[in-house]
């Protein structure tokens, strides 16, 4: 990890206007994405992982405010003029969404949805755009591409739709793909195909990927590094095997406890008690403290810093030593 990061996020904070007050959905988030790397952002619903992803290219509803730095190719995307941001979106950083059935425009053939991207970011002429869109469908593994280009989203199956969405997102050869729960809406077998497709395309096109998911299995299967989010903050980050093998934050430990394990003796799943705090009522100190079995007085008064435990592995937990010991005892 000596190369310069492709994307560098520093102190990213995103707030939403709720009429009377402003709430922060993402608070002080920092992370790097290396060239060719797949970074996983994991957390429960409402943890801020999707908002973090959308904040990178300011793809947010009106009333949202982003501060901090998103350094991409030497430029800070926060505060970049809309005209320049438009060139980055789709051209350099693309995004795919959770539900291909609703993210594809139902009234336009796939061809139009690919070609409008090519038109915005490439100098290809009409014939070139046609050729390229057919190549793209081939690339993502949609058979009979020439015919299917003129079909509409409702004529595709769920898996094929997700492939089509990936083809559209990758049309102008972006350097970074933001994937917001790309497999959540799909059958497990199809899920696997789509994740492998994303990994293959990462290798083939040499791009980086930020993958948002709530599924630790997806993270383990796909990502190089991961960051765990809770109540708008990153609470633990590091390589996938150190974090999943030796979690240093009580929340990560809790997440792991709620994943069913195959092959071992059947045990009761340990779910995490309670629910994440509302964004408008985040407790002082550690946001996870009210649900945490390790919590002590310091957790309720002082917010823990994200500090390194071992090389490239960091956690924001006052009791990370105890958490790591705990797994050793229970395993």
């Amino acid at each position, binding site marked *: 990890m000596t190369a310069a990061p492709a994307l560098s996020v520093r102190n990213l904070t995103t707030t939403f206007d709720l009429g009377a007050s402003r709430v922060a959905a993402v608070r002080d988030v920092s992370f790097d994405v290396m060239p060719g790397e797949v970074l996983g952002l994991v957390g429960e619903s409402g943890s801020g992982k999707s908002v973090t992803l959308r904040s990178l*290219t300011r*793809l947010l509803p009106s009333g949202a405010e982003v501060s901090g730095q998103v350094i991409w190719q030497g430029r800070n995307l926060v505060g970049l003029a809309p005209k320049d*941001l*438009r*060139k*980055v*979106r*789709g*051209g350099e950083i*693309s*995004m795919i*969404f959770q*539900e291909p059935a*609703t*993210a*594809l*425009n*139902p*009234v*336009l*053939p796939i061809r*139009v949805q690919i070609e*409008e*991207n090519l038109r*915005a*970011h490439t100098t290809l002429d*009409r*014939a070139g755009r*046609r050729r390229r869109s057919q190549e793209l469908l081939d690339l993502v593994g949609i058979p009979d591409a*020439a*015919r299917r*280009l*003129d*079909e*509409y989203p*409702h004529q595709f199956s769920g898996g094929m739709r997700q492939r089509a*969405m990936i083809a*559209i*997102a990758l049309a102008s050869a972006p350097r970074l793909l*933001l994937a917001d729960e790309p497999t959540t809406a799909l059958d497990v077998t199809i899920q696997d195909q789509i994740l492998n497709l994303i990994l293959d395309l990462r290798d083939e096109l040499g791009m980086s990927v930020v993958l948002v998911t709530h599924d630790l299995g997806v993270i383990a299967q796909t990502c190089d590094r991961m960051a765990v989010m809770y109540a708008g903050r990153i609470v633990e980050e590091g390589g996938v095997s150190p974090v999943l093998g030796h979690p240093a934050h009580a929340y990560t430990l809790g997440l792991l406890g709620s994943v069913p394990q195959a092959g071992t003796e059947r045990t009761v799943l340990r779910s995490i008690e309670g629910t994440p705090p509302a964004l408008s009522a985040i407790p002082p100190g550690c946001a996870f403290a009210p649900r945490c079995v390790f919590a002590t007085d310091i957790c309720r008064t002082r917010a823990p810093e994200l500090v390194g435990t071992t090389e490239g592995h960091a956690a924001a937990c006052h009791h990370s030593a105890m958490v790591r010991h705990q797994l050793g005892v229970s395993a």
Partner: protein
Amino acid sequence: MRARLRPRFPKCTNVRAPRVMLEYVLRRILQLIPTLLFILVVVFALVRLLPGDPASAVLGDRALDADVERINRELGLDQPIPVQFVLFVKSFVTGDLGNSIALKVPVSTLILERLPVTMMLTFMAAVFAVATSVPLAFLAALRRGRATDTVIRSGFQVGLSMPVFFVGLVLLTVFGARLRWFPVGGYGEGFFDHVYHLILPSITLALSLSAVLMRNLRSAVINVLDADYVAFAESKGLRSGIILFRHILRNALISTLAIFGLSIGTLLGGAVITESVFAVPGAGRLMVDSIYGRDYPVVQGLTVALAVLVSLTFLTTDLIQAWLDPRLKK
């Protein structure tokens, strides 16, 4: 223009798409046949169920039995009902709808003279309604919850709640009688004079339709703005104009178009009142006069003509909808 005729690339490889549309169009046109037959049955029955008979309407209360019989024979009313119905259908197929009892001219001539006036009025009203409601609905939706939105919505609310004849009279008094910008009635001579004479009536007629369209389109646009495909389009870095027209407007129009089609029937009904207020010699006024005068041939012919017109409007909006939304062609 010449350059466009030259093929620049191999034509569409999917031969299914145009065929699906063609099949859909043919199917919808075939479906029109039972609709039209049903309309004929209803009109035939309604006219015969109306109180009073044509002969006494023509001859007055003190008519001789022999004269009544003669009139009934001329109108074919002495025949058994099934025969009358066949003759009735035949008259519409051949276009020979008989003569008006009151005006002594062929009904077909009357319809061809008056119906275009009403069609013109309705068309202009539709244009006014669309031209005002579409941009303002967009503006309101994009400024949702802010002052602009509130002003637009309450403005249209007032328009929706005012009766047509009242609005007509106000416009007539202010812009016709006082300011003298527009004629107070009539239809004029020649196309542009027709348009000029119909401006106030069509604005009157457009008012309630534009309010309905505005409310509908506003909420449709708000729904579409929240759709994932709009966020996806934004994430592709498209120009805002492309996002607005190709992704937002097109999807939002689909549901509003259905309302628009249905409203054309109401609009034709509203034309009756509007034509009376502005003394426009259209089909609406002819209809009212004929009903009062028991002019059965005219009432029959005109009712069927209006019903056909409404059916054709529905067909057209259905076809446009299918063109906008490929999922409807199933």
